[in-house]
């Protein structure tokens, strides 16, 4: 009886192993990587994912961005602060167990300032339509511009007053 139960448990475990999901990893690489070495870093990063069973769907090559706020990350037991970073993302399919392994590997990767691993869908989630209205969004409006006034001419004012009175 116990053996039969074990078999059922094993079958269930296998079924969960076989279950695949679509994941997306967005990452910020440390800005200290020179531009010419970035390609090698990205390919080694992707190779490490592929080794763990990831099948790539789409990706975007990282590009240098200014971060919205300063981030800190301890690299080799030293706390470092970052205001810039190479932001890129990769979308892939893998089993749920491989997903956990990938997450553990990303935690240890010292080339990354930060990463975000989310479950997503196969098709592109970026909207093609641009938003209307205030493009700047959260940006505060600059102080109201003072309208330039023309030099006041007394004759024209008198004429305008006369016109109003009449």
């Amino acid at each position: 009886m116990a053996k039969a139960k074990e078999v059922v448990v094993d079958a269930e475990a296998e079924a969960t192993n076989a279950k695949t999901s679509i994941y997306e990893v967005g990452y910020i690489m440390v800005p200290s990587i020179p531009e010419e070495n970035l390609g090698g870093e990205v390919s080694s990063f992707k190779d490490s994912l592929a080794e763990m069973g990831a099948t790539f769907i789409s990706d975007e090559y990282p590009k240098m961005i200014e971060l919205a706020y300063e981030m800190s990350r301890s690299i080799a037991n030293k706390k470092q602060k970052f205001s810039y970073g190479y932001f890129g993302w990769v979308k892939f399919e893998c089993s749920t167990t491989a997903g956990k392994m990938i997450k553990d590997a990303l935690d240890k990767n010292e080339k990354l300032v930060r990463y975000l691993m989310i479950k997503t869908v196969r098709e592109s989630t970026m909207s093609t339509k641009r938003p209307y209205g205030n493009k700047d969004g959260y940006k505060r409006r600059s102080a109201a511009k003072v309208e330039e006034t023309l030099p006041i001419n007394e004759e024209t004012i008198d004429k305008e007053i006369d016109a109003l009175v009449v």
Partner: protein
Amino acid sequence: MKQDYFSSNNIKHIDYKDTELLKRFLTPSARMQSRRRTDVTSKNQRKLAVAIKRARFMGLLPYIAK
């Protein structure tokens, strides 16, 4: 009555990387706008909130703008 922006533009998934879109739903101090102001459905407002929080975590959007 205003229509839901996402439904009218046939946007099913709100991506955290689409910062230009997300900025539209933030106040000048980078806070999330309420549903009353955004005019989106409850479901999309929840998706929007998640996307904004993800973008903030990744440093694509600020938590607060000075």
